[in-house]
């Protein structure tokens, strides 16, 4: 009972503190903007812990955060092997190949209006399809190891990046292109100095969407067969053994990896597109 009460009191106190912070004169400060969601997250964890302990929920249904943390600390080596297999080899390799290919194809089809008009609707259409479905086919083609996972990721990230880049390359206005012409800039010069930089906000939009897709693709592909390591493999086997603390530990790693991946791309975006209004305020 005391666990439940404590959790509820903590929740109320945290919410009151957040409400005060959000309406206080400090609300514009950077520290406050980070502190408020952190307090909220902490409150969720405390409520989780309190309710699970208070109601005596079995660890087979939902383990409390403290147990999950203990599991993470105990099995760092397993988690690391899985992380390398799924994230570094599967998701990251596929992401880099897929994005590079999409950027290259976008620059090429940008030269031909005919290809643009033809490929854009097709690309937009394909981007809306459930591409994860190709995972079993890729596993059949490339085998169980990380190559098949990377192949799924390549296809999944290709279309969002392609569509966004093509849109971005069209983002310069006639005045700017005319200016380059008066400088008698060549095609390559115009591309490198004007159009690619101008396309960057769009490109990064695609790159950011793709970070989540990459992880999803890599993990889903592991459901169709994988060597005895990898996050998706570990999760499905641990669920079978009812080792839910291990499952949650993998989920925590996946969450941190996904968030960090997104954060890194967003940080690079900030550096590259420092001139864009959305980055300046």
């Amino acid at each position, binding site marked *: 009972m005391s666990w439940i009460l404590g959790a509820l009191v903590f929740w109320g106190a945290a919410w009151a503190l957040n409400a005060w912070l959000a309406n206080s004169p400090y609300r514009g400060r950077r520290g406050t903007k980070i502190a408020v969601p952190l307090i909220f997250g902490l409150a969720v964890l405390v409520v989780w812990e309190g309710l699970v302990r208070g109601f005596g929920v079995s660890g087979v249904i939902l383990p409390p955060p403290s147990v999950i943390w203990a599991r993470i600390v105990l099995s760092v080596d397993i988690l690391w092997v899985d992380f390398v297999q799924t994230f570094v080899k599967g998701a990251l390799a596929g992401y880099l190949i897929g994005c590079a290919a999409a950027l290259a194809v976008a620059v090429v089809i940008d030269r031909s209006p005919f290809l643009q008009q033809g490929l854009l609707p*097709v690309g937009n259409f394909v981007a809306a399809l459930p591409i994860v*479905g190709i995972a079993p086919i890729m596993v*059949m083609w490339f085998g169980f190891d990380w190559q098949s996972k990377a192949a799924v990721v390549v296809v999944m990230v290709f279309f969002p990046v392609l569509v966004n880049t093509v849109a971005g390359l069209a983002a310069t206005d006639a005045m700017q292109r005319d200016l380059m012409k008066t400088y008698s800039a060549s095609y390559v010069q115009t591309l490198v100095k004007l159009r690619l930089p101008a396309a960057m906000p769009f490109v990064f939009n695609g790159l950011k969407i793709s970070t989540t897709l990459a992880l999803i693709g890599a993990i889903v592909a592991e459901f169709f067969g994988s060597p005895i390591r990898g996050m998706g493999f570990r999760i499905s086997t641990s669920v079978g053994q009812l080792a839910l603390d291990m499952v949650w530990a993998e989920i925590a790693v996946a969450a941190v990896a996904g968030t960090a991946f997104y954060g890194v791309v967003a940080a690079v975006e900030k550096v590259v597109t420092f001139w864009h209004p959305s980055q300046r305020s």
Partner: protein
Amino acid sequence: MRRVLPVLVVTAAIVVIWYAASVWMNSTWTLDQAERAGETPTFGQIVADTMAQDRPLLPPPHQVAAELWELTAEKKITSKRSLVYHGWITLQATMLGFAVGAIMGIALAIGIVHSRTMDMSVMPWAIISQTVPIVAIAPMIIVLSNAVGIDGRTVPKTIISAYLSYFPVLVSMVKGLRSPDAMQLDLLRTYSASNAQTFWKLRLPASLPYFFASMKVAVAASLVGAIVGELPTGAIQGLGARMLIGSQFGEPMIMWTALFAAAILAAGLVFLVGLLERLALRLTGQGAP
């Protein structure tokens, strides 16, 4: 016609490349068989054989189309092999998840627009929630709902597709509900409109275009969620389950037809949402003339 031609050419090019690739990829098997029989097939024989294998690495388009036609139009809907049947199972979970996700997204957006505390504490976590690969959680959601005593897979599939589809709705609705500018909000204040009146008469109608734009993304996402929800624990019904079965039994045609059925379903859903959008915008007087 001018806009259709490039699309047709590109599509035709894709089909041609597909045929070429399937000849190339399937020929390994053909040559292998011929070598074992001690024959040297001519190029024409190789091509003919690659067009009609039982377990091709890459089935040519007409083979997929024929199989698709057989499994949808010619099979009885009640048959366990009928794709209409499996598609219906997946569609149910998709629509449920889509509805739950949309309602959740809208509710959260309303809260966020009206409460600064909620905006500051929930919004960052909503973003983080999308960087968590939900598929990682899918097997656990299924076990959890079984442990709580929910039979069947509809509920876990619904949860997964709701999780994937709420976010686009949330982001667009926050944008949409905030889209009325200060002048319009001031006007309503001069009418001494209450918060609720401002919401129903200004904010909600103004958010409609944003709402429908996000619906298209959300419906595609919730189909992905439903398919992924069928993968991890050996479901036997639904398009995702067909893919898994095809993979486990080494039957490429099952995988390919399930993949295309899913693609057709996705295209149909997006098209439907587009129709609804045009209708709703016209009814509220915001549509293009």
